[in-house]
């Protein structure tokens, strides 16, 4: 097991002195590894490790009825499961509020960047369209689940195949009509504020010591497409500016990872 014996005060002291584990810089990600296409029953799948945080994501496509206010569009649903496998503090049962926030932040980053053109998922106006389900499992929690889950979702989506269907709209098992097209490649960056310092990609110890958290999604045009502040602390306007500048800088680096998939 990872050793979490040192306390929050020690983490704070180290952060104040500019020391992170493995000499990481404040705006540096831990090592990211991605494997895709690993699960046959999934339409798309990925295993992502961000340092020691480990995520599995899988997608499924199902035909459903478009919503009345968007009769020519399909849709997407993102769910994050804090599997009891991933940490002693996770438990089996209905989604916690932490899991719901995580799901919704990942969902919004992808949705607001217009990553998927929902009109392309239409099969019959008002009647039939593809709905994409992204299910994300946290299998080892060593901090920054937001970014790790977003990367896993993007990797699974980017490698998702659209099933072939017959004239009755039944999926033909094991046959595919093509790949799901991602129009945009948004990147999510999550920052922790600890002792008035802002650090990117907090690990678990840093998570515990976090006073305020900010997740920011950046799109292909280096615009902000989603923001979420969390925890009981605060940010100043200057800190937000600093975070946005860092995120724009990080965008290209992270985009390369998605492009390679």
């Amino acid at each position, binding site marked *: 097991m990872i050793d979490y014996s040192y306390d929050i005060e020690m983490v704070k002291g180290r952060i104040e002195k500019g020391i992170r584990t493995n000499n990481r810089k404040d705006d540096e990600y831990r090592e990211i590894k991605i494997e895709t296409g690993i699960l046959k029953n999934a339409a798309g799948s990925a295993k992502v490790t961000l340092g020691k945080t480990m995520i599995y994501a899988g997608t499924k496509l199902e035909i459903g009825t478009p919503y009345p206010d968007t009769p020519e569009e399909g849709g997407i649903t993102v769910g994050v499961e804090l599997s009891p496998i991933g940490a002693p503090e996770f438990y089996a049962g209905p*989604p916690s*509020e*932490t899991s*719901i*926030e995580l*799901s*919704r932040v990942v969902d*919004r980053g992808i949705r*607001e*960047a217009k990553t998927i053109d929902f009109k392309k998922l239409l099969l019959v106006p008002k009647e039939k369209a593809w709905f994409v389900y992204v299910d994300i499992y946290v299998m080892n929690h060593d901090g920054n689940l937001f970014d790790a889950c977003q990367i896993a979702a993007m990797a699974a989506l980017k490698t998702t195949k659209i099933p072939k269907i017959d004239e009755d709209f039944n999926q033909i098992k094991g046959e595919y009509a093509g790949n799901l097209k991602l129009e945009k490649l948004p990147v999510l960056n999550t920052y922790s504020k600890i002792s008035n310092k802002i650090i990117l990609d907090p690990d678990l110890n840093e998570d515990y010591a976090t006073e305020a958290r*900010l997740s920011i999604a950046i*799109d292909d*045009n*280096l*615009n*902000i*497409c*989603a*923001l*979420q*502040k*969390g*925890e*009981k*602390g*605060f*940010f*100043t*306007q200057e800190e*937000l*500016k600093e975070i*946005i*500048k860092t995120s*724009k800088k990080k965008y290209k680096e992270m985009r390369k990872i998605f492009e390679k998939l």
Partner: protein
Amino acid sequence: MVKKRVDGREMNELRPIKIVPSVIERADGSAYLEWGQNKMIVAVYGPKEMLPKHLADSQRGKINFIYRMAPFSVPERKNPKPGRRDIEISKVVGEALSHAVLLEEFPGMVIDVYVQILDSNAGTRVAALTASSVALADAGIPMKDLVTAVAVGKANGNIIADLNKYEEDAEDAVDMAFAMLPGSEEIVLLQADGILSEDEFDKAIKIAKEKCQEVKKLQIEALKSKFKALKE
């Protein structure tokens, strides 16, 4: 010709806001708030012992914030059960509120803050947060400052304050929920959906900070009028 918004407002003009504290007799503190079409009631119960005890924090108190929408408060009838949106808002708004309350004065205790949305038209979470800090003050809960919140964002190419539902449905709409402690300008809530450039973001934050000062005056007036009423 000066451009105006669909409801006749200026770009950075808030909808009419009405705040009335002390509306629920049985609560320790409460507030009724109207913000444009939005209507809601907040009640505060506590501080009281946290039960079950294993959820208590022996170092400081907790805010238990619950936000709910009535089935009739939205255009399409909502299922009475709380949805994922209700739960997320409860979490982040509760965290924002927690920063202002002197929780270290209530070790092991909890303060329940309940918000019931009765009618809605965009911006309910910032309205709920604004009303909640009035209700906490009404309950006499010690706070380092009020929390004041507004929505800012973008619609049809303009950076605007306090979007209504119609504006939220614009093709390029961005809705940003913002809250700060008006004294220190510490930002405690920030949630945004939709595409904003860095410059637009800066402009939106600037408006948000100004508007918060405006809302804060209404909060103070509401509380003053109550204490004035009490003295008479």
